[in-house]
């Protein structure tokens, strides 16, 4: 298997191999749901309608983790492929697939260099997956290559405002602006490398790779929402007032 993974991708692979068991245990009840849900607040796809009808479609999940999403899409009649940079995450995926009684292809690779053919998918997507842990300057061109004409790219990430408003000491979001907005790209805490772009830079990158921007959905949690990712009440209140996540939809023209 070709593996042109960057140094950052190899570090993130080690990070996820190391933390996967703990992650899947910690979030198990929150993210193993009977219907597809998005992000930190697990807002149902049936409310947001990001992917639309996936039945009969070839769907690639970039950074599938334990493939909770792809398993549910397979049950809806999609033909998913789950890709993840971490072998340990894919072991969890195999376990959950067996429990669910579904089977589809899993690929162990960095989303920055996907060992799959051009124009072989109708949907490329992820929910806080590769678009958080791999370089968007590689992922957007890769997604354009992998999609058929008319295909949809959709993914959720933290909003740029959460990065600006995160207190670096407590790692909690606050009303105060802590970080500069300009120059957002790569955040390396020594353990894991995460990526984030300003709103305008996402649009530039989509357009430069031939995508048409269809929507930016900024989901808002309900007043009693709980999350195993944002556990503090102050975090929920922040996310009620300001966008904690972005879901981008972009289409490759026919």
């Amino acid at each position, binding site marked *: 298997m070709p593996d042109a993974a960057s140094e950052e991708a190899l570090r993130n692979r080690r990070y996820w191999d190391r933390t996967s068991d703990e992650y899947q245990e910690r979030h198990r009840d929150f993210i193993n749901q009977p219907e597809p849900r998005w992000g930190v607040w697990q807002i149902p796809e049936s409310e947001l309608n990001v992917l639309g009808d996936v039945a009969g479609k070839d769907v690639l999940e970039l950074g599938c983790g334990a493939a909770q999403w792809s398993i549910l899409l397979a049950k809806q009649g999609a033909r998913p492929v789950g890709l993840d940079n971490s072998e340990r995450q894919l072991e969890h995926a195999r376990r959950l697939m067996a429990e669910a009684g579904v089977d589809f292809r899993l690929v162990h690779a960095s989303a920055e260099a996907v060992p799959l053919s051009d124009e072989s998918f109708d949907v490329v997507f992820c929910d806080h997956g590769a678009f958080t842990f791999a370089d968007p300057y590689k992922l957007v061109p890769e997604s354009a290559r992998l999609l058929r004409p008319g295909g949809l790219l959709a993914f959720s990430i933290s909003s740029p*405002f959460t990065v*600006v*408003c995160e207190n670096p000491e407590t790692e909690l979001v*606050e*009303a*105060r*602006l802590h970080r*500069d*907005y*300009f120059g957002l790209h790569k955040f390396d805490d020594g353990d894991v490398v995460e990526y984030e772009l*300003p*709103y*305008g830079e996402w*649009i*530039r990158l989509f*357009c430069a790779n031939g995508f*048409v*921007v*269809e*929507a*930016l*959905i*900024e989901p*808002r949690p309900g007043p009693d929402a709980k999350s195993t990712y944002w556990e503090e009440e102050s975090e929920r209140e922040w996310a*009620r*007032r*300001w*966008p904690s996540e*972005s879901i981008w939809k972009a289409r490759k023209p026919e």
Partner: protein
Amino acid sequence: MSHAEDTRRNVDVWTKANAEYTDRKARESWAKEEIDWGMFSGPESEIGALGEVADKDVVELGCGTAYFSAWLAKRGARVTGVDPTPAQLETARRMQHEFDLHFALIEAGAEDVPLPDASFDLAVSEYGASIWADPERWIPEAARLLRPGGGLVFLCNSTLSILCSPDEGKVEERLLRSHADLGRIEWPGEDEGVNYHLTHGEMIRVLTQNGFQIEALHERLAPESTTEHEYYDFIPAAWARRWPAEEIWVARRSV
């Protein structure tokens, strides 16, 4: 409040701003050779939001004293300026005589422009309709006025700067206003008007629903040399050097 009342109120705001600032500033603005965007003078030569304007039919929606239209006319565009405030258009007409640079000026709000369908190649707005008119009304009107393939380019205050704006006083280094409060904003201060500021997601929705394809969102960083604006002083220069004070949307009407 009705749209007509909002418009009347905004016309009052601009009549006063004309007496205080824009009339005396008009000559200097008209004389400038560069096209600059916004409070911190982002140079078009660097941003490239407009593309080639020579020989194009251009409408400026909310032209004020029409200095932006004048810059485009000097570059060979056939310009029409539209604004609802008579005092602003009066200044624009005086400048047209002084500079011997003539183009059509129409007294109207950008939500209802008395011009035919598909008669322009480019619609622009620099703090005009882009913040002073309801996007649900002026963006469909811009789509109507543009020919297929025509461009829509407009500058607004950034979403982040509005979220950091108190009801009165300068922009702060913290979020004060909720995302859910964006949309129609009635500033409570004396002599303040009614503005419209959308979230990025909502602006994308309004543009795409009206048949526009989004080409760019230029979020502007103020240069190191930036000083506070002499009249629009609600954004500290130090703020604008760290966070985007202004943003320019570029969209194209589908062919």
